[in-house]
């Protein structure tokens, strides 16, 4: 059966996807519906992290403002719902178009900078989004906005109910992973990956790298807005708190934990982050302290993140053969 993954890490990822696909049944069987909630939230974040990894991992664009697109996606559900427009296709179209427009306008400016300036300017733009929503009294300002009903997809699959929403999330996560995989291995993606290492060289080979990077930035923002749209539906409540730069920082950490510039790294990183957060906060209220130490240790000793460790297993099993 040569369609099965051959590497150890590939098998682990395949098993992980299988478990995720069966998760609602597993949690029902062990009678722990709360875990489905936790997993739903983790997978929503994973979509955002997969999209961040597209620009950060493959493109070398370290954005500290990616959570803005989660917020944009969520408010594209919240604000229409506030006016009793519950059509999901409308929400989806709004989320994709607003995030693409915002990413195009801000990315056009951000991508003229490099390194630490890029980090600062992406953060500045996301803070602008944060304070914009914070000042919109009509939509709850810092109290947030309650969404009374989930997006409606008439004559399509409903989002109502924990299990069907979970499968919406899972399906969009798979779609995001597949899309990123195909994009990165297409010539477009190879140009992005090449530019990360040597941009002047890519330009001397005839590529306007600025446009390529901008296109990549916009695509990542659009994928991230899907996560926002799902999050709005999942929590039934949105507030500017989802957009703050600390949130963006968490997304960056999830990428690093999982493995920068790998396909499944972001998914694994997000799962580990969310689970650790849950477990540690059950042990002590000072869980941030333990979490911080773990993160420092990971950055110091765990080069390549969890994917890096798994690929060590690949090499070991190869050596055995």
């Amino acid at each position: 059966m040569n369609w099965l993954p051959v590497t150890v890490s590939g098998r682990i990822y395949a098993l992980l996807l299988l478990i995720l696909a069966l998760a609602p049944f597993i949690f029902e069987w062990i009678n722990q519906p709360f875990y489905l909630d936790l997993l739903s939230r983790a997978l929503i974040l994973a979509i955002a992290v997969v999209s961040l990894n597209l620009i950060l991992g493959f493109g070398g664009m370290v954005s500290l403002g990616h959570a803005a697109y989660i917020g944009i996606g969520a408010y594209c559900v919240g604000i229409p719902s506030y006016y009793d427009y519950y059509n999901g296709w409308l929400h989806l179209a709004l989320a994709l178009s607003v995030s693409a427009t915002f990413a195009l306008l801000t990315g056009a400016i951000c991508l003229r900078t490099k390194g630490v300036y890029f980090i600062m300017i992406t953060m500045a733009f996301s803070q602008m989004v944060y304070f914009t929503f914070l000042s919109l009294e009509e939509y709850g300002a810092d109290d947030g906005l309650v969404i009374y009903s989930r997006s409606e997809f008439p004559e399509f699959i409903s989002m109502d109910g924990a299990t069907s929403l979970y499968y919406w999330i899972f399906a969009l996560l798979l779609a995001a992973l597949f899309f990123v995989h195909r994009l990165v291995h297409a010539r477009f993606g190879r140009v992005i990956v090449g530019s990360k290492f040597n941009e002047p060289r890519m330009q001397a080979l005839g590529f306007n790298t600025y446009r390529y990077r901008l296109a990549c930035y916009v695509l990542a923002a659009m994928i991230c807005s899907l996560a926002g749209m799902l999050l709005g539906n999942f929590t039934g409540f949105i507030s500017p708190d989802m957009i703050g730069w600390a949130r963006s920082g968490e997304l960056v950490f999830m990428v690093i934990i999982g493995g920068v510039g790998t396909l499944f790294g972001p998914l694994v990183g997000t799962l580990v982050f969310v689970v650790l957060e849950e477990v540690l906060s059950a042990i002590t209220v000072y869980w941030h302290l333990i979490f911080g130490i773990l993160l420092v240790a990971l950055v110091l000793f765990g080069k390549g993140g969890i994917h890096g460790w798994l690929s060590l297993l690949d090499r070991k099993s190869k050596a055995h053969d």
Partner: protein
Amino acid sequence: MAMLELNGVETYYGTIQALFGMSLYCAEGRVTTLIGRNGMGKTTTVGSIIGTLACRSGEIRFDGSPINGKPAYQVAQLGIGLVPEGRQIFPNLSVRENLIATAANFSRSDDPWTLERVLEFFPRLCERLNNQGSQLSGGEQQMLAIGRALMLNPRLLILDEATEGLAPLIRQEIWRRLEELKQSGLTILLIDKNIDEFAHIADNHFIVEKGQVVWQGGSSELTSDADLKARYLGI
């Protein structure tokens, strides 16, 4: 007619002037060389031509129209391919990806370079196709860098330090390949130090000293003039 022409080009790094009125030309279908000691402005000249360095005054013409001030990607699209100093292979792409990621037919050739043709041209790359760019020997890297430039189907190929740091046997292979490229009608601007090895394929030489051309002439004049070599090239 000259395909590429530089007239009085002056280029600065910040406030430091590197080129002091560089003037040279590349005739179509010929191999032109730029020689001189280190730090004399050869690579700066290349950077000015391909648009990675901005020249402050003077003029660079390709096919008769000025190209100075154009961004590097536009210059490349006009048909100038570069094999840069130090190869500059993308280490995070495989050999195959290095070749095909940027492939284009900028000269609108009827018989363009393809992956198959490049592999026929440099058979050593065949067995390395799936290796990462970082896993190649110097010679293989140089073959890949030349192959990558050919995959753009340029009209002018610039090689900056074509054989620097390569073993004699590899150098011989590179020279043979460049000779084939010349016979196919490609215009080449070559920078290298092994004058005796490439003199027979080159047509016209420009010696650079302190940011300008101090001598120009044919291969026989260059190789027979020991004084010239001693004075400007330190050989």
